[in-house]
Every structure is written in structure tokens, then in C-alpha cells.
């Protein structure tokens, strides 16, 4: 048991280090901007004094290391800085944006982050069981017509861009047969079912893309094991094929399957960007794209960090779960 705890601590430490490196990378990338934030906020026609004033205000005349620690310290306290676009707005409204009012990035991110998590969760809840069942069935009836059909259709949906899948779904489920709404305008006051219905179409799009991948990997993981001697033994004992797969092969294939699920959940977190834009879903991905377009650097920075953190976290979970599920990894030599 001690060894397991040690391994997990080790992985957590590694994850933290990665996160730190990523934050440095993002900070460095943003600092490669021509001019600086002050110039970016005020535009090219700004006077020297105005630029200097803003620079003073944002602490831009400190050295990069100090700025980085300030930024990181703020994030650890839940303060992601002030959005440029909202800062202009709130200065008109006479509010101090840096105090967590409307202008702060954190206030902007919070509801959208919840929405994105909701979308990813709905997609995951639909796709994980479907892909596991389909994967096991494809492994069970490998090389049959069913397997070929599933293989070709999953390969097709993996390789299609998300917006193609999205528009085909919109065409059939929203325009030709108006079953589901094609725009996901979600408000905080909505009831759960209403929210679910509005989320269903984007979630279905993500499901189609992700299921294909997970299903293929599940099939491959199980088939990989079917050549091993203990499976042959079980088969020779006369156990039914379905039982061989579910009770003998599946437990050993668990580690790669968990890995794939986590990787796909990580993909869900990033894949939401395009899907959210198609369905005008008020999530973090759409905010990210909008901010990129208007070069709202603090928001871009924050979104990037959140996406990266989610990505690292899910990969970390996959790592830990696959260690836990495999006794050989639990007791390293």
C-alpha cells in the first residue's frame, strides 16, 4: 500500500511540475507580443503619458520574473486579472474592475466554465457506455459484417471535422425534423431538463466523434489480449466467447481502456471549442475564440491555462488509475 501512495504522490508531483512549466510557457508566449499590454489596450494612437500610466497601473514596468510571480500568485487566489474588453466597459460604468466586479476574468469565466463542464459531462455520460459496449461487441464478433461496418463508420466519424458532424446533425435533427434546438442559448435560471435539451445537440456531436475513438481502442485493447495463452486456455475449457471476453480479457484490458477514456475526456475539453462555436454554446471555448479574435490577452491566457490544467489533470488521473488497475505496475521492481 505504501508503494502505491508513493507512486501516486510521485505522479502528482510530476503533474504539478508540468503545470508550472506550462504556465511559464504560456506567460513567455504572451510576452512575445510586440509592444506590451499597455500598447495593446490603447491602440497605436495612444500618447506616451497614457501608455506610461497604464503600464504603471498594470505593473508592466517590473521585470518579467516579478510579473510572472504576481500573475501566478493572483491565479492561486482565484484572480485571473482584468479582461481588456470588459475593462474598457467597466471604466465607463465607473466600476473598479480589478476588485472582482464585471470586468474580472474570473467573473467572466466562472459561469462559462460550469457550462462547458456540463456539456462535457453530458457527452461523456452518453459516449462512455456506448463505446464500451460497442467495443466489446466488435471484439466479440471480430471480422464479421458487424465489425466491418462499425470499423468503417467509426473511422469515418473520427476523420470528419467536428463542424461537419455538427452541421449534418443540425440539418437532420433541427432543420428537417425539428426535434432539438440548433442554438444552445443557456441561462443560469434554466431548469435542468431545459438545459439538457439545449445541450443535447452539441453533446451528441461530441459523442459521435469521441465514441468512435474510444470504441476502436477498446476493441484493439481486447483483441491484443486474445492471443495470450490464458485466453486460449479459457477457450479450450469450453467457456462461452462472451464470458471469455467480459471476465477474462476485459479486466486485463482495463488499463489501456481507462487510458483511452481519460484521453478522450481530455479531448472533449478541447474539442468543445469548435462545437461551442457552431452551436453558440456559452462555454469557455467560445469565450476563448472570441477573445483570440479581439486579442483580449488576459482572457486568452486564463482560458489557455484552464484548458491545459484540465488536460494535465485528466492525463494524470488516467495514469494513476491504470497503475491502480494493474498489479504489475503497483509493485515496480
Amino acid at each position: 500500500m505504501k508503494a502505491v501512495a508513493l507512486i501516486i504522490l510521485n505522479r502528482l508531483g510530476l503533474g504539478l511540475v508540468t503545470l508550472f512549466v506550462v504556465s511559464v510557457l504560456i506567460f513567455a508566449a504572451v510576452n512575445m507580443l510586440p509592444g506590451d499590454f499597455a500598447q495593446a489596450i490603447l491602440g497605436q494612437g495612444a500618447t506616451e503619458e497614457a501608455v506610461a500610466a497604464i503600464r504603471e497601473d498594470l505593473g508592466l514596468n517590473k521585470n518579467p520574473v516579478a510579473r510572472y510571480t504576481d500573475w501566478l500568485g493572483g491565479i492561486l487566489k482565484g484572480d485571473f486579472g482584468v479582461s481588456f474588453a470588459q475593462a474598457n466597459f467597466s471604466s465607463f460604468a465607473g466600476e473598479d474592475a480589478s476588485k472582482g466586479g464585471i470586468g474580472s476574468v474570473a467573473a467572466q469565466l466562472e459561469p462559462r466554465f460550469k457550462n462547458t463542464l456540463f456539456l462535457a459531462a453530458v457527452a461523456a455520460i452518453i459516449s462512455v457506455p456506448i463505446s464500451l459496449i460497442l467495443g466489446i461487441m466488435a471484439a466479440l464478433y471480430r471480422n464479421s459484417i458487424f465489425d466491418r461496418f462499425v470499423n468503417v463508420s467509426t473511422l469515418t466519424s473520427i476523420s470528419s471535422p467536428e463542424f461537419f458532424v455538427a452541421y449534418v446533425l443540425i440539418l437532420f435533427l433541427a432543420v428537417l425534423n425539428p426535434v432539438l434546438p440548433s442554438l444552445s442559448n443557456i441561462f443560469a435560471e434554466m431548469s435542468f431538463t431545459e438545459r439538457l435539451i439545449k445541450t443535447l445537440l452539441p453533446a451528441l456531436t461530441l459523442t459521435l466523434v469521441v465514441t468512435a475513438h474510444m470504441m476502436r481502442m477498446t476493441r484493439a485493447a481486447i483483441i491484443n489480449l486474445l492471443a495470450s495463452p490464458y485466453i486460449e486456455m479459457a477457450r479450450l475449457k469450453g467457456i462461452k466467447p462472451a464470458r471469455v471476453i467480459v471476465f477474462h480479457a476485459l479486466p486485463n484490458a482495463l488499463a489501456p481502456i481507462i487510458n483511452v477514456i481519460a484521453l478522450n475526456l481530455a479531448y472533449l475539453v478541447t474539442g468543445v471549442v469548435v462545437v461551442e462555436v457552431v452551436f453558440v454554446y456559452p462555454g469557455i471555448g467560445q469565450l476563448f475564440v472570441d477573445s483570440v479574435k479581439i486579442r483580449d490577452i488576459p482572457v486568452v491566457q486564463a482560458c489557455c491555462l484552464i484548458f491545459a490544467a484540465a488536460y494535465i489533470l485528466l492525463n494524470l488521473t488516467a495514469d494513476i488509475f491504470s497503475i491502480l488497475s494493474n498489479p504489475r505496475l503497483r509493485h515496480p521492481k
Partner: protein
Amino acid sequence: MDTVVWLISWALAIGIVGGVFRFAGQKIRWPSEQLNIYFRDMPLMVGIGFVFGVVLLYVVFHYYFIEKSTFFRWAVQGFVIFSAASWLFWTFGKHVGTRGSRKLFRKMPLTAAFGIMTIIVYAVLSIFAGVLAPYGQEEIFDKINVLPGGDLAAGGDPRFLLGTDQLGRDLLSRLIYGGQNTVGIAFMTTILAFLIGATFGFLAATLGGWFDQVVSRGVDAMMAIPQLIFALLLLTIATAWAGSNKGLITLYMIVIIAVLDSTRVFRLARAVGFNIVVMDYIEAAKLRGEKLSYLIFREILPNAYAPLLAEFGLRFCFVFLTIAALSFLGIGIQPPLADWGTMVRDLSQFINFAQFSPLTAALPLMAAGAIALLTVAVNFVVDWMLHQSSGLKD
């Protein structure tokens, strides 16, 4: 809620009918012994599968002949036409050509033949876009928003088969040129990614030591950020540098995606390289006193060809989809260059007209489908190549 009940009852019905089908098959004494044995050994799921297949076929036929299901009809027709064309191509390849190519075609599945055929068609279309397209991609006509179909009475124009966009540019020409730009740029980006990734990967494998450590850790850090997100972040900065120069933005995008994508190529090239470096012939070459360039180009590269080629296909798909997604989001290939991602975004509103003018609604799907078709084709070929090289039979 009704849909759920409806679905469950259908699933139950199919299950019961499948069970009955299997049971009946076992009870009936068939004239041929083979059928008797087949039914005796049939698992329940196979029986259900048969019934499910029949239901599926019925649904397809039913919807095909319903008056209003234009899109479904098109989809089925497209599927049949593509299958028939790739089957013809397949048979053609089996009988015509050199001995080697005929043998290759005999062994490949239909999907791979479809992939190769589609790739050839795309290559021809992109290379000869200037000849094939009726007009230039930036040519603006005075008739804007002409509907597709070429029917004057219905708001179309025989000069513009697919109509014109809101600026008066011919959509058919833009679709063809879009192929040239999107495919060409993705191809260039992939080659660049391979040049960077493979060079560093092989260098890391041959030099080892601190060089390997530094580059590998750098790549690890870059891979910890999701690719699309990182590309968006870097593009924000790149657009700030480029200012209003649209061509420069496209150039920066190529470089950024190539660098981000080269991380995966690096991983593969390094892994393959490490397996080759430990071989005796490398040792011998080193003892002969060969230079580093000789080691990489004459000894390692020829032996790493097969996995790198398969990876090239996959990377191309990935780059192609990333560029299409970025263009769709409005930050990729910049106008006036025509490209499919931007076309999908610009035309996407037309999808709401599906009930009145199916052809208009099909416009965004054509551009998106063009992207999907190529990636599907490349994936089919890569799938076949991987399957062949791995020697998996089960």
C-alpha cells in the same frame, strides 16, 4: 421521454424477433446440412443482428422513397456512386498495370481502393484548379447571392452553377480553389513538420545525452498543452505581429502548426531512431568514422521509412483538420484566399433553408464534406498500411 420509450420498445421487439428467428431456424429441418449446422451454432446476438439488419434496410428504403427526404436520398446516392466508382477502380487496378501494382490491388480491401481513388481525384483537382475552375477565386461579379442550381426562374444563373456568395464570387470556383489552398497549405505544413520533427528526432537518437534530454523535455512541455488551444494562443500573438498583412498571418499559421505538430513526429522519429541506433551496422558505420549526416541520411532514414510514411498520412489528416478548424473559427487561412473551413463558416446560415431549397442548404455541407471525404480517404489508406505492416490477422 417518448423517444426513450419508443427506442426501448423497438430494441425489445428486435431482440424478441431475433430470438424467435434463431429458435425457428433451429427447429426447421433445412435441406442442406450446412444450414442446419449454421443455425445450431448461431449465437443469439447473430440472430438479433440479422433482424436488426433487415430493419435497418427497411428504414433506408422507406426514407429513400419519401418525397421530402432529399438529403437522405442524396446521401444514399452518393454512397452508392462512391462505392461503385471505387469498386470499378479496384477491378481496374487488379487487371491493368504492372505486375507489382496488380498484386497490390488484389490484396487491398475496397476501402483502401476508395481512399487511393479519392486522393488521386483530390490531387488532380488541386493541382489543376486554375484550369478546372470556371472563374478566378477573387473574381467578383455584379450578381450577388445567386442561388445554386443554374435555374434562372428559381433565382439561379446558368453561368454560376453553385451560385455566388454575398460579395458576388462564384462558389464553384471558390470550392475548387479552396481545395488547392486548403490541401496545399496542409501538405506544406505537414512536410515542414516532418522536416523539423524527424531531424530533431534522429539527432536526439544518434547524439543522445544532454541534447536528447533538453529537446525531449521541451517537447514534453509543449505536448502538455492541447494542440488546438496552444495554436490559438500563438496565433493571437502572431496576428498582433502581422498587423493587417493577411498573407503573413497565413504564413505564421503554417509555421506555428508545423512546429506544434513536429512534436509528435519527433516522438516517433526518436523512438524509431533509438531502435535503429543500437543495430550492429550503425556501430560499424560509427567505427568506420562516418559523419553524422551520413549516419542519419544513409543508415537511419532508409530503415525508418515505413513507420514514418504511415505517420505522414495521419499527421496530414491532423494538420488538415486543425487548419480547417482554425479557418472555420476565423483565424486560419485569411481571405481573399478561398478555403473550405472559411466557406463552411460563411455559408453555414444557409442550412436553415433546407426545407425550401435543399441545394442551397447543401452548400456548407459540400465544403465541410469535402474536408471530411479527404481525411476519411487518407485514414482508410493509412489503416490498411498499418494493418499490413503490423501483420495483424485476427
